[in-house]
């Protein structure tokens, strides 16, 4: 039984990221290139291969450990930090995504030795490479150091439903996944959870307090709009 897949960052994988980064059709990106074929280098460098082990079926739940190494290149990390801040900017005096270290979560995710995250790894790396190439254009600054305008000009091509440029659907799907992961990590952080309004995980004695008066008033209003009655005895 194969539970975990531990692919090497071989030439074929690298070229897949590269071709996707160039906006090549998926069918081309999926082809196995000739081992002798030459091509331009990856702008963000070649990440380390996956190493380390899965945490297994009996990890120490009281002292969680992430037993795999982080694999993103320095250039990838820089790009991801910038991208994280576009997804989670500093708002209302709250820290931005990179200040909360959400880029480290992305690195942990794409470096983990599980099939589900390995699929994300390939798609996200290709999207990072495409963003880098698009922003640099004819020799400009890297995504990480470019102006916010230059960054959003590139991102806007893949970030909005119904407005994805032709041929960039794989990059748009990868960004959708990236956004999902980053926003999840933001809400799971203490400041993000507070902004979202999760106020559980707090013990209280006695009977469960149930909805507040304010919450019940809101419910009553919604029920009134639908011609429904607030049930009694629950």
């Amino acid at each position, binding site marked *: 039984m194969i539970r975990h897949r531990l692919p090497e960052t071989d030439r074929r994988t690298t070229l897949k990221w590269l071709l996707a980064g160039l906006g090549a059709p998926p069918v081309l990106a999926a082809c196995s290139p000739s081992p002798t074929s030459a091509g331009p280098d990856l702008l963000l460098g070649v990440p380390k291969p996956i190493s380390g082990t899965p945490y297994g079926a009996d990890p120490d739940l009281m002292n*969680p450990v992430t037993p795999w190494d982080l694999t993103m290149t320095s250039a990838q990390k820089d790009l991801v930090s910038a991208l994280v801040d*576009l997804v989670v900017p500093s708002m209302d005096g709250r820290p931005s995504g990179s200040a909360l270290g959400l880029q480290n979560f992305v690195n942990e*995710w794409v470096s983990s030795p599980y099939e589900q995250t390995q699929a994300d790894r390939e798609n996200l790396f290709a999207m990072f490479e495409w963003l880098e190439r698009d922003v640099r254009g004819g020799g400009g600054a890297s995504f990480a150091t470019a102006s916010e305008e230059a960054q959003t000009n590139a991102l806007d091509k893949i970030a909005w439903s119904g407005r994805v440029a032709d041929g960039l659907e794989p990059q748009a799907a990868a960004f959708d996944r990236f956004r*999902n992961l980053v926003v999840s990590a933001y809400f799971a952080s203490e400041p993000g959870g507070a902004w979202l*309004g999760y106020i*559980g*995980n707090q013990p209280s004695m006695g009977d469960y307090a149930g909805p507040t008066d304010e919450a019940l008033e809101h*419910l009553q209003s919604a029920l009134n709009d639908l011609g429904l009655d607030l049930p009694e005895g*629950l």
Partner: protein
Amino acid sequence: MTDHEHDVLVIGSGAGGSMAAYVLTKAGVKVHMLEAGRNYDPAAETPMFSENRDAPLLGTSTPDKDFGFYNATIDGGWDIDGEPYSAAEGSEFKWWRTRMLGGRTNHWARNSFRMGEYDFKPKSRDGLGFDWPISYEELAPWYDRTEKLIGVYGVNSGLSNHPDSGAGVLQPPPKARVPELFAAAAAADIGIPCVPARRAVLTRDPGDGRSPCFWATDCGRGCNIGAAFQTTTSLLPWARETGRLSITTDAMVYEITTGEDGHANGARYIDKTTGEHRFIGARAVVLAASAAESARILLNSNAKDRGGLANSSGQIGRNLMDTVGSGITGQIPGLEDRPRYNEDGAMGMHVYIPFWLYEEQAAGQLDFPRGYHLEIYSQFSAPGVGWGAGLDGYGRSALESARRYYGSFIHFAQRGEMIPNENCFAEIDAEQKDKFGIPVLKFHYKHTEHEYGQVAHAQQASIELIERMGGRVVSDVKAPADAIAAGGEIIHEIGTARMGASAADSVTNSYGQTWDVPNLFILDGAIFASKAHKNPTLSILTLAMRGADHLVNEMKQGTL
């Protein structure tokens, strides 16, 4: 007659085995228990209050921990390294196992619905499947004792085939949360009942060292205050307190042995810590390794005639059933941007929708047999992976959209009754063995139009509820054959050594006592004669209490 200090050997430490050990030791019987998994100490190992952000990958599910990092499943899940199972061509069956003291009781949902009068006599009612050799009336006092002992919240709703408990048995349920009240309002408007759920979660101090729920931390992680029932905080420590229970963990049982008189005289197991094969004797054996594992052990026993032990009826492994499962999710505008409050509550359901169409069904107005209930899930839950799904753009607008929708989704999960059929069974795989060299199970599984018809009805009812709540369905509503959960996926597998009125077509009598081997009792889900839509654990506990009590009586009378 024996050279050991105990009288009864109990195989398995989950719901059935632990209840048997509790009843037996309380009655003065010395018990030795074998558990295939490792020892587990909930006081030291339960990650109460641990944050998702502190777990690898925010605690999301992985092939190592299918239900998430913090879930109280040890060395288990859909697949266990070195312990495979197979499925026949065209069959899909998923077998959830865990290898730890207390078994699956450490992480179950704690939903605890009694079976009712119709559920015990289903064939008499509609001609399908099999009747139980016991009525609800006979089992009712045992349900009362079990519920009182473990602690169950709920109310007596007086609904047909959803029996009331005895006076003073149930604990008060927690107040309903906003989405539950919303669903109940819509249900009432279209004539569907929505009542407090029943769950094995304490809301009052039972005075036995366990504490009532303090309304925080996921029950699936286990509960180190004992509020959410699991055998490792209750039946097992209580049995140990008698001084009459000893336990060997890491003991993988593969055979129940018999003497020349045909009676069970012990079991063979592999000590997983050394790999050694060992034998342990006993005056009587209680098998409660879980429905499928118990069938496997019996089919692998008495190998000389290949028919398995206690299997003169040929029913061991047959009649495999699981709860019929499907689900529909909706998004409710009236729940958007609602005021925040602590909605953890008892974590699981506070209210649910019991089956409400027994009269219509009896009158022939439905095109499917048997019932289902709808479990309702919606709350401001702890953020984790997936909370950023379905967004558009980036930055403030995307985040504010996520915040607006938080807590506005509702999921209706169908949990229904399956009719046993000849295409659903487990047998010994003729070729494959596990890492211990024990032949593995091969599953055969096919649903029928009965189940598909029920799924279609549940889908329509769920859609009607969502629409009456002013919402939109966000699930992909699939055809029933595609929407239905795979066999085993609801983790209610039962029926593989059914009880009955006759040795000719059943494995045990109503006490779980095997017809062929009178000192061998099966006290887990294997003995169910039908699979009511009610979640099975409460009934496993109750049948085990009654069966173990019968074993005590027979031992006292000297018949065993």
